[in-house]
């Protein structure tokens, strides 16, 4: 079998590391742009449409109600597909980094592993881009009644990723059967640097914090929010119905309930965003701890990027949680946190791109 630790310019591992970091960076930039320019504006438009729907209920105008909900459905689809594109792009980036790490344990030829890496990256790009397009392509020219071409393309992208992962699993299985053959090859670096150590410990603590927050949210908040959600909608409808036969219509109560409903949605959103971001940044930090051996930068720069990465990883979720209390200031700090993570990732990506196999050359020379 060929040398599985090779890091040549188009090798499977290098492809996956470069592709993975690029996917994470692209997904984060997309997420930041979405949060700043789309998310809040879209939420306000949904709130306004919901108020218009309650007005229509008070006016006994069923057609207008349905028109408003069609409008809301379109805005929710717009929001949902963009969140999905953001999440999938980043998660595929993580998966690519993971697959890069387990390459020494994938007992396949370098050519097969390179093909699997390309297949994975193709699917990993195809799925989020297609999901992003769902809102714009709609059902145009689709042979199906409820699924458009963009959805079909997204599902195909997902299938490519699954096929690539299945190939990697077969490689792992073959390695497990002949484990003695590659026993000496180890993915973990022989020397653990400060940057690697800090990312590993920091990442584990971030994940632990995220799990504890998630458990607290699931036990104490989730069901409450769901109940409040239903009560708010019922109250909204009842308040609108109460105005149907009123000579001088007063929608103030209904509007207050709509605003309250918006707050419930916002509270749910910030909790979920904080939970998912802190865990994902923790995972990313641990993954980056192992990538450090391929980052061809001076040690002090590796340390700087590690610190910048962890600082951003704490700032973003913490200030997302504080957004409801401190508004735009907290939102700005959270966005700045995201920017720090992006900068650190680009710094590390530059280091990986500068690496043309020096690690292996060094190891080979040492051997």
């Amino acid at each position, binding site marked *: 079998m060929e040398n599985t630790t090779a890091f040549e310019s188009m090798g499977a591992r290098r492809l996956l590391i470069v592709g993975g970091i690029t996917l994470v960076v692209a997904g984060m930039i997309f997420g930041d742009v979405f949060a700043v320019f789309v998310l809040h504006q879209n939420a306000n438009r949904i709130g306004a449409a919901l108020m218009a729907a309650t007005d229509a209920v008070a006016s006994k105008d069923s057609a207008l109600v349905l028109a408003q909900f069609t409008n809301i459905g379109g805005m929710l*689809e717009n929001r949902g597909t963009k969140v999905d594109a953001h999440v999938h792009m980043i998660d595929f980036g993580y998966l690519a980094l993971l697959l890069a790490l*387990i390459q020494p344990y994938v007992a396949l030829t370098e050519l097969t592993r390179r093909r699997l890496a390309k297949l994975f990256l193709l699917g990993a790009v195809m799925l989020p881009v297609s999901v992003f397009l769902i809102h714009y392509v709609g059902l145009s020219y689709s042979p199906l009644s409820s699924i458009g071409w963009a959805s079909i393309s997204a599902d195909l992208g*997902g299938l490519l990723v699954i096929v690539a*992962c299945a190939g990697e699993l077969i490689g792992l299985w073959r390695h497990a059967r002949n484990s003695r053959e590659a026993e000496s090859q*180890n993915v973990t670096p022989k020397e653990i640097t400060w940057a690697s150590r800090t990312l590993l410990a920091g990442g584990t603590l971030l994940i*632990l914090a995220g799990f504890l927050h998630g458990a607290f949210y699931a036990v104490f908040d989730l069901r409450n929010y769901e109940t409040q959600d239903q009560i708010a*909608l019922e109250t909204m409808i009842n308040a609108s*119905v109460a105005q149907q036969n009123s000579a001088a219509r007063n929608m103030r109560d209904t509007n207050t309930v709509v605003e309250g409903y918006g707050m419930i949605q916002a509270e749910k959103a910030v909790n979920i965003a904080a939970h998912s971001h802190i*865990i994902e940044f923790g995972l990313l930090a641990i993954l980056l701890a192992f990538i450090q051996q391929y980052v061809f930068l001076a040690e002090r720069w590796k340390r700087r990027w590690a610190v910048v990465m962890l600082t951003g990883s704490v700032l973003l979720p913490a200030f997302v949680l504080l957004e409801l209390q401190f508004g735009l200031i907290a939102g700005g700090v959270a966005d700045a946190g995201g920017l720090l993570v992006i900068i650190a990732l680009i710094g590390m990506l530059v280091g990986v791109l500068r690496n043309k196999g020096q690690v292996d050359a060094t190891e080979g020379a040492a051997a």
Partner: protein
Amino acid sequence: MSGSRKVLIVSGVALALWGMGFGLYYALFVEHQTLDQIGGSLAASFSDAASGDVIASRAALQTYADTQFDYVRSVDVHSHWIGLAMLLIVFGVAFDRVRFLERQKLLLAWSLVIGSVTFPLGVIFQTLDRGIIPQALAAVGAALVIIALAIIALGFARTERN
């Protein structure tokens, strides 16, 4: 490769595949219909109220709440299975740095794997039965993951000190 690392890596890749397969199945056969039902029932509850049919409005709102309940959990399960799978693989790669005996590490690895499978399983079972058993299953799974995670963090810290 040690037994604990093998357990984590193979289980992680298998769980990722399972999570993605579940996501693909859900996206193809369930999600579009569910989203239509969520939007449709919410619109119907307002529309029925506009027509003065309060009973139908309440029934539609209940359908909306029930469908939303199932949808949130199904999506959560998909993302948690894949997220936990990635965690398993990452720890599989890093497990050499956890300074415990191999026997203890194997126990830790299995706890993490069992927790990662049962926690989302308990959540998805809640869409079939909202009783105590699925909730207990999810809680036990989550507790296993959290405890294993805390011990692994301790193991990493011991490594750093040593």
